[in-house]
């Protein structure tokens, strides 16, 4: 099929399939909820507190650097398609592009954003306290 119609039909089929399956199980399945069944699973113990608490800042850092580098990847694709027309000029340009990018990459690496465990993080030793 030419064009986007096939993609749209496929999405429609997917939505239809998933809705029919969920709908069928809602019709066919039993319904007798008890407070125990409706509690979030926590190894069989009564759940403590709410799940939506503060999360490690690492996840946000990864999301941020991903955005930056993914934009770079988005630049790569038009370059790769037009590569043969651009020739060595385009090659030099993409090398300089990557050099600029690698400055940020090295900075992020040195700052320890890419290290996940607490043991391997680069921590600056605290200045020795002056004896009073």
């Amino acid at each position, binding site marked *: 099929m030419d064009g986007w119609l*096939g993609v749209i039909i496929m999405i429609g089929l997917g939505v239809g399939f998933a809705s029919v*399956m969920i709908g069928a199980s809602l019709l066919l399945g039993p319904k007798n909820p008890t407070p125990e069944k409706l509690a*979030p699973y926590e190894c069989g113990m009564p759940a403590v507190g709410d799940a939506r608490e503060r999360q490690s800042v690492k*996840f946000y850092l990864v999301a941020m650097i991903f955005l930056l580098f993914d934009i770079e*990847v988005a630049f*790569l694709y038009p370059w790769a398609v037009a590569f043969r027309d651009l020739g060595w000029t385009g*090659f030099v340009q993409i090398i300089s592009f990557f050099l600029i990018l690698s400055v940020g990459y090295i900075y992020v690496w040195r700052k320890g954003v890419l290290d996940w465990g607490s043991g391997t993080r680069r921590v600056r030793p605290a200045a020795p306290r002056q004896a009073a």
Partner: protein
Amino acid sequence: MDLRFLVQLGIIGLTFFMLINASAVLVLAERKIMGFMQQRYGPYLVGPHGTLQPFADILKLLFKEELRPKGSDKWLFNLAPLLSVVAAFAAFSTVPWGAETTFFGLLDEPVALGVADLNVGVLVIFAITSMGVYGIVLAGWASNSKYSLLGGLRASAQMISYELSYATALAAVILLAGSLSLRDVVDAQQGTWLGFIPHWYVFLQPIGFLIYVIAGVAETNRAPFDFPEAEQELVAGYNTEYSSVRFALFPQAEYINMATMSAVATDLYLGGWHGPFLPPEYGWIWFLAKVGVLLFTYIWVRWTVPRYRYDQLMSFGWKWLFPASVVNLLVTAALVLYFNA
């Protein structure tokens, strides 16, 4: 409505049907192969040699109670499995799986075997597979369960980290073929070198292929990178709170994503439907065989390699795979220019 349009609709329907079947067959294959690798038979009772086990599973799940934990977000909790499975189906829509054919003279003009032929096929696949992560993250967040939330967070961090190397490895293939359309990339791999080595990009891009496969395993959350559902740590990760069919849709999406990943690898690196011995009309047999081999490797890896540690996963993705894919891309670019000039 002319005949050609009806045939194209039939091809779409067939692709959709085969994707549903693929998820069922993969469930069975995984359990069978796991069984044989652990010196036992796997499912054996339902149907001859257990071949009807997936049907039994889905029937059982249809008759189970749908539970939604207290404090969960009603709409997002229902939307999450739907979103994952729709993204999985839609991602396959720009993957061509056979050469153009007239069905033995039935049609005047040949039709292409595949759902949609877009000139930006690779980008569409990226866009839609990235939507799949929303399903997992929403499932984790909406459940209001600590295990689910951790699974969802891990999944998102892992998928976005490996997306970079994945996309950069593919850029090298796009560079060789000079087109974003998967059909053009496949047709650029026709022919042989020296008469017997097939003109496949895996021979030009061995490192790129390796990076693609590793990142693909991580993108589909399969072992050894199955952190979102690491059952020893997180019970079942993002789908801890799901039951019944809503639970079944997540593994189904995962298996369809595996099939998509293998099909894209076949199209981009393994020459798609081109192969010796068979006429082009039967090229889809080659395509299925190659996809089958890749899927078997997926399952093989799962039951061979133990799971990584999470910090190892992240540092491997960012510190090794991503630089390696960038270097691979730049070296490829230089070599293409050098030999073309």
